[in-house]
């Protein structure tokens, strides 16, 4: 009896000390994370996209995904949105007469929909079982079905609506773009960039892609300029990091410079994304939401760490509650005999 009381007194004291320690060092808010230095990603330039959807077909093939039909004849792969079996899709923007490509009024444009590989992904923060993780080196947001419990919190959390679930299966998995990470061991990069005929989808290091995007924004619309295709070679190409990629001929070509919105989508959104986008039409009109520079994951984890960091607060409250309850419940013990009589 006395041992337990001492234990509890000790616990209360310990909790008090822990609170004091916690108060001395204010719980730091969890800052929004930045892209890792060797982050891999894509640059999608809507002004170069011709809407051929070769990337959609290549993605299906590379990821072993079945066709999805939305037409009566069921002849062609015609998904209406990304799904657990469609990780990449080209969507179309239409306005009025659809006269001019990449014009906001009376124009049309194409936009790629696939995982943005956020620097600070909501899906990774949300996942309770580490099935959704961010590769610490290349920053690819990876999914492990063997760990997944199918709670779909990642689906709810993603502001881009990217992770998708198989509702038609009793053993449904999440499906999303993993930047073709399964092909890297063979020296091959993302299939969508590999097949893109105009270089609208370009694969490379996010840092290099961001520099390339800024180069394009500085060009004069209507002029001709050189555009790389496939994989963007880094300025310091030849280093060990880049030796992993298969050698391929330089596919650069000349094309007309589009008239860009002066914004690289993904440079700062939610702390930055590894997939970057350029567009002639305002981003919100082509399905890219306006996002603050702080990631929701940082807000969420700041609250979690403030309340539960080192379990300081819960233990302190538990200590206090135990102390109080101990005093008040004792009355009940004394009343026990009386309670017996009542039966």
């Amino acid at each position, binding site marked *: 009896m006395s041992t337990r009381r001492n234990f509890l007194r000790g616990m209360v004291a310990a909790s008090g000390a822990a609170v004091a320690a916690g108060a001395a060092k204010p719980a730091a808010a969890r800052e929004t994370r930045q892209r890792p230095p060797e982050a891999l990603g894509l640059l999608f330039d809507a002004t170069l996209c011709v809407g051929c959807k070769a990337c959609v077909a290549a993605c299906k093939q590379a990821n072993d995904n079945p066709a999805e039909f939305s037409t009566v004849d069921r002849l062609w792969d015609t998904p209406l949105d990304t799904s657990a079996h469609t990780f990449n899709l080209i969507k179309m923007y239409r306005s009025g007469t659809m006269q001019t490509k990449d014009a906001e009024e009376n124009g049309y444009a194409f936009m790629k929909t696939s995982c943005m590989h956020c620097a600070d992904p909501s899906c990774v923060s949300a996942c309770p079982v580490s099935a959704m993780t961010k590769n610490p080196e290349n920053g690819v947001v990876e999914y492990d079905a063997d760990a997944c419990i199918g709670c779909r919190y990642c689906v709810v959390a993603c502001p881009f609506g990217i992770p998708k679930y*198989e509702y038609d299966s009793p053993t449904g998995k999440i499906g999303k773009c993993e930047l073709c990470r399964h092909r890297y061991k063979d020296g091959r990069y993302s299939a969508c960039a590999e097949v893109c005929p105009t270089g609208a989808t370009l694969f490379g290091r996010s840092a290099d892609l961001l520099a390339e995007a800024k180069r394009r924004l500085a060009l004069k619309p209507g002029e001709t300029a050189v555009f790389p295709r496939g994989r963007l070679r880094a300025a310091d190409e030849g280093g060990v990091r880049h030796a992993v990629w298969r050698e391929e001929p330089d596919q650069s070509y000349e094309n007309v410079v589009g008239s860009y919105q002066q914004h690289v989508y993904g440079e700062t959104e939610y702390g930055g994304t590894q997939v970057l986008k350029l567009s002639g039409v305002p981003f919100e009109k082509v399905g890219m939401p306006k996002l603050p520079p702080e990631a929701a994951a940082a*807000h969420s984890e700041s609250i979690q760490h403030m309340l539960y960091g080192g379990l300081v607060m819960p233990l302190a409250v538990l200590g206090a509650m135990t102390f109080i309850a101990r005093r008040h419940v004792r009355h009940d013990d004394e009343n026990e005999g009386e309670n017996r009589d*009542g039966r």
Partner: protein
Amino acid sequence: MAADRHAHHAPAPVGGNLFNAATLVCGVLIAIMIAVLAVRFVFGLGAVTNLNDGYPWGIWVVVDVVIGSAFACGGFSVAMLVYIFNKGQYHPLVRPALLASLFGYTLAGVGVIFDLGRWWNFWHIFTPGYANPNSVMFEVAVCISAYIVVMWLEFSPAFLEKWGMEDARRKLNKVLFFLIALGTVLPMMHQSSLGTLIVVMGVQVNPLWQTQLIPLLFLLTAVVIGYGVVLFESCVASSAYRRKIETHLLEPLAKVMLTMLGAFVVVRFGDLLVRGALPLAFQGSVAALAFWVETLCFLAPFAVVGSASARRNPARLFLAGVAIMLGGVFMRLNAFLIGYDTGVGVDPGWHYFPSVPELLVTIGMFAVEVLGYIVITRRFPVLPREEAQVAQ
């Protein structure tokens, strides 16, 4: 204080027949639920639900778990009052409230399994190596699981008394104070975290609900809902079992509830004003309408049971309890579904309204709760003994 308790009647079984209209209806509803669930586990979630990638969480999460567990806060709210604030006069309310909580939480825990797409992996959430402590859902899952165990232990004296296991009961009584302390801390943790769940959804949740204070708002409403549920249950149990209504307890309890509710309203509107989100409530949108329905439900009890004489009227107590419960329902539906917009409105193709089979499972879950409550109160010592028992 102890003198107060001497006046109480010890809990006793209500007795009576277990086969009646109410239990039969519950039985049928439960059978239907089992049939729907069989289809769900064989063919997948899509076979019975209207869930989609725009609304991957439906009523099985928001109603069965988030709202179900809030409805199950009666035990927590009353235990706080009795054992922490030492209001011994409410002691007779503890066991019935705890019983309802026990069912609410246990079913919420079981209900999660129905909704998990890869349920056979559920143990990962408790396993180091898999578990992600940064995830709000991890906290919710661990905490709710722990609380379910604690509540069964807290409630077990009712079983031990019935089965005459006096030794075990006495041993349990010695550590009961610690279980009670755990039973107040754990709900504080996960009821607030159920609100924090929406923070990572970021701009997809309407700013009327997306706030850093959402954990506090969920916690305060959970406590208030706890009292509301006790009012509701006491009125329903009294009328169904034709027992005396405990007005002398419910009157002051309703007053405590109004005080807590007042605190919530101040925090709620203070937060909206400070963040400048209040103008959103005056736009012609579904979210704005939903906000006012929620708010009116939370304000209604001030009008219904504002005066001491009104609080002695059982019908008004019942209405106040229902209003609070509805306020809690709307707040949670709004934060998770009505105020939620996948992809921030750039992808307007998604809709969700629960399917009939989906509703039947939720209804079936409540039927389990009601059936369990009836069986246990009739056979185990939960409700205070009445002078002349009239239950049939």
